[in-house]
């Protein structure tokens, strides 16, 4: 009996790990299958190259695609420079005092704040406080705020992985502290930083709540790239097609198509990150 138990235990251990992995993969496959099988039929060149027409019952998703792309660009332009610089300051320059530790802990906590709260904050600060109105710019800045804590945290972790000996090597040949960071530490940590940045941005691209009050529009009949105008975005378009539209059943294929396009946009971004990291790894090792 005892012997039997000893034989069974590893099988249970192994089995439960496998089961968990299997379960996760199963749901992933189900979700992807569901979206692909139902969205594939509405996916075509015209679907991604045409504007939504006839009260969004026909046509494509060009304007939401463009909206999401520009929105993500604004988010990136705002959050990457500030986030990376902040992480560099915290990790390389700031002394380890209670103030630094408090700031760091606050940043970590901010990444746990629900995104709808960022939406409300963006409404108060950008839309009303700074009079930017409900616009691409307001929404992009709001998403930028949402992204900052993630970018700071992942960048700091990437910087932490660079050994002190690398910094000393640069100093020893006459680099100033800033030069050692710019020329040696940053290039060495770039793959890690980029991974964090892209994962954060692909998350931001799929957010609905923060843009809800800050600039996203229900339906616009033409493509607007003006940052002071309202815009359409893929996640909100999807939300709207699947819950708010007057003829939900009729537009369901369009909703699935939109979901598919959103997944593909995010996938493309991740692929870019993957490629950049691959290139850097090849150069470095």
């Amino acid at each position, binding site marked *: 009996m005892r012997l039997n138990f000893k034989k069974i235990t590893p099988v249970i251990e192994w089995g439960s790990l496998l089961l968990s992995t299997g379960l996760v993969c199963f749901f992933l496959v189900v979700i992807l299958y569901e979206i692909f099988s139902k969205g594939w039929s509405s996916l075509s060149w015209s679907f991604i190259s045409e504007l939504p027409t006839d009260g969004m019952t026909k046509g494509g998703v060009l304007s939401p695609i463009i909206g999401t792309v520009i929105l993500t660009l604004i988010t990136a332009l705002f959050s990457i420079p500030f986030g990376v610089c902040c992480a560099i300051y915290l990790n390389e320059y700031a002394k*380890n005092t209670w103030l630094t530790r408090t700031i760091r802990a606050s940043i970590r906590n901010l990444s746990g704040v629900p995104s709808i709260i960022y939406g409300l904050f963006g409404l108060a600060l950008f839309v009303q406080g700074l009079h930017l109105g409900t616009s691409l710019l307001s929404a992009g800045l709001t998403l930028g705020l949402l992204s900052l804590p993630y970018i700071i945290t992942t960048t700091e972790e990437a910087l932490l992985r660079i050994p002190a000996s690398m910094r*000393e*090597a*640069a100093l020893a*040949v*006459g680099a*100033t502290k800033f*030069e050692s960071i710019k020329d040696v530490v940053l290039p060495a940590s770039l793959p890690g930083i980029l991974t964090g940045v892209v994962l954060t941005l692909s998350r931001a691209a799929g957010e609905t709540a923060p843009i809800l009050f800050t600039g996203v529009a229900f339906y616009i009949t033409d493509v607007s790239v003006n940052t002071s105008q309202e815009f359409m975005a893929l996640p909100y378009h999807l939300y709207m097609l699947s819950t708010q539209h007057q003829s939900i059943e009729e537009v369901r294929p369009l909703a699935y198509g939109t979901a598919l396009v959103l997944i593909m946009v995010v996938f493309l971004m991740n692929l870019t990150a993957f490629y950049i990291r691959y290139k850097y790894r090849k*150069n470095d090792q």
Partner: protein
Amino acid sequence: MTNNLYTKDLNIWFGSKHVLKGIDIEFPEKKVTALIGPSGCGKSTLLRSFNRMHDLVPDARIEGMVSIDGQNIYQKGISVTDIRKRIGMVFQKANPFPKSIQENIAYGLKLNNLDASPAVIQKALEEVYLWDEVKDDLKKPATRLSGGQQQRLCIARAVALRPDVILMDEPCSALDPISTLKIEELIHQLKDQYTIVIVTHNMQQAQRVADKTIFMYLGEVKEEGATIDIFNNPQHEITKNYINGHFG
């Protein structure tokens, strides 16, 4: 002037810990000096104080002076980068930059506004006997070299700046015996042109490479002299015990 590097009553504290106590030593020019002593005796701390590496440590406090060519390197207003150009350093673990072999040498040259032409790079690599091994791979990442080659590249990087002094912090501790031998031969060649200070845990290595040996214990210099005297005729019991391997 025969001594271009010396310390006078050098004291270093890390926080409240008094790590180096009243160090007064001289390093003969164009000779190899070995710093030996048990772990924690302060020999690496002393070595790193010579190119102001402790500037990075927030709670380090340094008193006294380290002088090169009559100039105190801790004097106010002195250029730290200039000091580090004149006093190069090779670290315990080879730490090439994540750049190409060629850029590893060129980087320091460019920072100091020196000529970084291929000829200069070639000369530096030849001096460490690395040129023949890497001449076709100059554009390849330095991290692809073997450990011993990486360490020689790091020496070339220091040599390229034409320093007066080269500091070596246990440069062979992570290397195999053959690579170690190559580095030791290299040190023999380099001392014609540079004053070399080497920290080592390896008694045989100290005897093979060093002209002068300094034995440190608990943050103080216990004994110093010609390597041959220190190893054959140590004056202190503790030195004798250490070099005979009774403690470490």
